[in-house]
């Protein structure tokens, strides 16, 4: 089996079998990172470009390591200013890169839809490394991988996502991915951070965190963007932490085996107490698994199938 598209733009529309294929492939690649010599020759001779229009350390490094561990040549292009400021269009930039012959372009952009726009105009595979508030598919895949690894399954689990759902691409990709894999998803946050129609994407909405976490198998905390206070989305950090911060008391309301996740970087004492954060080894496992999942995605988009991995 192989992936149906040349690109990975989002989880929306992916079949459960495709997601399972990526997760299974990632499981075989995870070993590579555990070895003394962390490299396989799988993508030798392939060129991978990280084209990042938005600041990122974790995701860019993860993609870079994933490419290098597959023996691909990886180039990073980070531009803090937008293409508009720079005076060259996004498409011109991408076409110039493609003219130097590359196989995979990994795009992060603050505008939703930018990777999709490029994918229809480039021959290279495009991987969405996060676009605006739209999707962050590899984050959702690594989250699904981590949950499956720790809890043994995704089907039938209850996953609660807490925070600024409206401005979160991680939340959207996870809602699509987890519901496709048979999990139940609840979203929780103040109404100012819950976007209209989210129920139609398959998530239940609850504004009360104490209720939302009851019976949860997984609690996924989102990073609070502190600048949203100025737009009136929440009154202040203190009240936010009181209403929507994850502390031990709230963890205790979930199932006994509850798993706490955070895509990072964390605001300790705001959306997650230090006590909970430090008792949550999974958060670093997510980072470790991110490399394996991204190796799997690059491998599969390059035409690999699971048997060869």
């Amino acid at each position, binding site marked *: 089996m192989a992936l149906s598209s040349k690109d990975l733009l989002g989880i929306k529309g992916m079949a459960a079998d495709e997601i399972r294929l990526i997760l299974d492939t990632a499981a075989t690649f995870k070993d590579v990172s555990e070895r003394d010599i962390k490299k396989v020759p799988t993508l030798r001779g392939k060129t991978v470009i990280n084209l990042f229009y938005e600041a990122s350390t974790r995701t860019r490094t993860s993609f870079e390591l994933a490419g290098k561990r597959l023996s691909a040549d990886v180039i990073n292009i980070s531009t803090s200013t937008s293409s508009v400021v720079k005076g060259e*269009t996004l498409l011109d930039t991408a076409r110039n890169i493609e003219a130097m012959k590359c196989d995979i372009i990994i795009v992060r*952009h603050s505008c939703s*839809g930018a990777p999709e*726009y490029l994918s229809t105009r480039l021959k290279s595979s495009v991987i969405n490394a996060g676009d605006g508030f739209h999707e962050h598919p590899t984050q959702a895949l690594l989250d699904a991988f981590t949950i499956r690894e720790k809890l043994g399954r995704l089907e039938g689990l209850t996953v609660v996502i807490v925070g600024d759902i409206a401005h979160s691409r991680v939340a959207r990709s996870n809602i699509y991915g987890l519901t496709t894999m048979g999990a139940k998803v609840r979203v929780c946050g103040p109404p100012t951070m819950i*976007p209209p129609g*989210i129920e139609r994407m398959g998530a239940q909405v609850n504004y009360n965190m104490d209720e939302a976490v009851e019976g949860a198998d997984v609690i996924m905390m989102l990073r609070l963007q502190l600048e949203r206070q100025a737009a009136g989305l929440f009154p202040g950090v203190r009240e936010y932490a009181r209403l929507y911060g994850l502390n031990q008391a709230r963890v205790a309301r979930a199932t006994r085996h509850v798993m706490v996740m955070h895509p990072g970087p964390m605001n300790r004492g705001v959306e997650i107490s230090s006590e909970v954060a430090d008792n949550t080894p999974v958060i670093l496992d997510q980072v470790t698994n991110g490399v394996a999942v991204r190796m799997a995605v690059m491998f599969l988009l390059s035409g690999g199938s699971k048997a060869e991995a």
Partner: protein
Amino acid sequence: MNILIKNGHIIDPANKVDERLDVLVSDGKISRLGKPGSLPANGSQVIDAEGKFIVPGLIDMHVHLREPGYEYKETIATGTAAAKAGGFTSVCCMPNTNPVNDNSSVTEFILAQARSASAQVFPIGAVTKGSRGEELADMGELYAAGCVAISDDGKPVMNASMMRRAMEYSRIFDMLIISHCEDSALSFKGVMNDGIVSTELGLRGIPRAAEDVMTARDISLAELTGGRLHIAHVSTAGSVRMIRDAKSRDVKITAETCPHYFALTEEAVRGYNTLAKMNPPLRTVDDVAAVKQGLKDGTIDVIATDHAPHAMDEKSGEFDYAPFGIVGLETALGLTLKLVQEGVFSLTEAIRKLSVNPALILKLGKGTLSAGADADMTMIDPNVDWTVDASQFKSKSQNTPFDGWNLRGKAVWTIVGGKI
């Protein structure tokens, strides 16, 4: 030169004419109407209009001709050529040019450029200097120079007190104020309608309330001041409802919508289609139904295009960065005829909204085929099936979401001031 148009079906709602008549045009005016075959040709150019409708020239009271300042998008020459191709004999151009049409020198420049244009051009002046919303523009000067209305279109007049004073002051000239109803604090950085589609696409939403609160405010101000208010590009069910209510209380208010607000919904944005990005944004099926009902029951007086040309370089790329707006002059009639075919309203009612009503609202002295009136006429073939092909537009810009649409009925001749 004289023109005899024979065998056409005349629709002249202002004179309640709806029958087969011949029309004689001489010296740029409508000379006579008479039973088929009753008028002498006498060396006139003869046009056979068998099977066609002859209607008062269409008037688009909301276009952006981009000149001066943005001639790469459109010029007065290309914009009026597009108007003529689409059946429009007159257009009213919004003042958001560069410089803004907030003084007589800009108005006079536009009118000078318009002398050789393919359609009549009626400029609309700015409400405030530079459309910055801070000080009133010299309304008397704009009126004297030939502006037929004032508007800060593209931007709202956010300061309610400034809008109040503008409406009061406009009474000196009985000048129409055209309001772009948008609360810019509510629309903020939005790029499409706020709803399930914006949630799925991860795009910032513009709630319907951003339009509705301004419609409500401006209706209140119209009641307070007695100024004549026209609501531009109505896109929401809420605005339709409030305008209907205001009219029932005899508030001096009129309203327009645009073809895209009855032909498309927010679903058209999927795939990050920048050709479906406009302000106000495309709304929901409920809003489309309300807009159609508003057209049907007379709440909405006018169909205007908000013709907003942009170069394709600007319109492609990141959705967030693309400018708002689409061209409309060459598709508006076909899309309006679609409503006639669907039974929303009659052809006569369509002509009221495309010609008679804008002429009355703006006091243009047009929109009729009375003897002695300007010979502005549009000949419509109601049965021709055609496909929108943006590459063939007379407009300098091709930013339309309707490319490839199959429509029935179009303008085959447009006569402006007696000239074909």
